[in-house]
């Protein structure tokens, strides 16, 4: 899933933001329609659960509407919204850790892309891939939140380093350092056997 970050808000978006800021719910509804997918997938990548991602992203929009007074129509909407989404996601993650509850959702949040699947794949190979995906999900879930966030933005949302740096308000070097730490941890956890088949 490739999502390009629009750095400059369009004129139409600016107008919607001005109307939403004045309390126009229809205009805000239009912004929700435009950005609900990105907000949902951002939350899914950070939380690894469909229910939590849906709940958190919708709550983020509700809070965004309540905080519409701080909306600046001269700046793009999504980076502003993303700050709310990520803060809520980090709160959910912190609560999970505080309560020592593990994510027990059976539904996978990562899927193998269709182009990789083949009718000729034998059951053993499919089972191996399924196991690899499950391990990858588990290991991503164990990463520190900021590393996980950076990895998800790069790997699953397809953002460039510059875009990630702008979205998170950090230098590009920090983006690269976080990516390295996250990938190093994943590669170590998955080990030689886990990564063997894709070589």
């Amino acid at each position, binding site marked *: 899933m490739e999502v390009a970050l629009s750095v400059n808000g369009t004129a139409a978006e600016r107008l919607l933001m001005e109307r939403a800021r004045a309390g126009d*719910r229809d205009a805000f509804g239009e912004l929700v329609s435009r950005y609900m997918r990105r907000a949902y997938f951002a939350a899914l*990548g950070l939380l690894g659960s469909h229910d939590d991602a849906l709940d958190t992203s919708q709550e983020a*929009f509700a809070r965004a509407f309540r905080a519409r007074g701080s909306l600046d129509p001269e700046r793009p909407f999504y980076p502003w919204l993303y700050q709310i989404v990520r803060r809520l996601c980090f709160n959910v*993650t912190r609560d999970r850790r505080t309560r020592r509850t593990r994510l027990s959702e059976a539904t*996978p949040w990562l899927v193998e892309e269709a182009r990789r699947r083949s009718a000729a794949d034998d059951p053993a190979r499919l089972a191996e891939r399924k196991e690899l995906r499950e391990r990858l999900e588990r290991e991503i879930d164990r990463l520190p939140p900021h590393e996980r966030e950076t990895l998800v933005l790069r790997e699953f949302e397809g953002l460039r380093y510059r875009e990630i740096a702008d979205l998170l308000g950090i230098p590009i*070097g920090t983006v690269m350092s976080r990516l*390295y730490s996250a990938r190093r941890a994943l*590669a170590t956890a998955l080990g030689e056997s886990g990564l063997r088949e*894709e070589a």
Partner: protein
Amino acid sequence: MQHDLVPDERARRLMMGALDGELSSSDETELKRLLEYDPALEVEWRQLKRLKEVTNTMSLRQPSQEVWEGYWMGVYRRFERGVAWILVSLGAVVLLSWGAWEGLQELWKDQELPMLVKAGSLALIAGFVVLLVSVVREKFVVRQHDPYKDVIR
């Protein structure tokens, strides 16, 4: 890419840039040279490349179409419930305050009631008011100005 880095950090950033297609040709040449020179780095590079191949085959799971169709209603329900909670809270505060005020007046008018009971009821109500003010202040004033509110602990 920055050159004033310690060699390890420089190599790591070059590897990341190469994996994500964000290296200039001169950076690519530099990485190639580092990999030839350092066998341990070459091993790490192969692992990271294999991991990248794995993650390249994965994507985030798409929810069903119904999720998008009902999304705005989910957000809208939250607005409604937010307004409803504010109204319920305001109503409760008004009614409870009025009830407390009336009850207190009755208590104080009752000549047979011991003074200790009257003082106790007054303390109870005063305590509730202080608690309420404290909670409201924490929610709306302190948290908004907490410089550490975004820190992940």
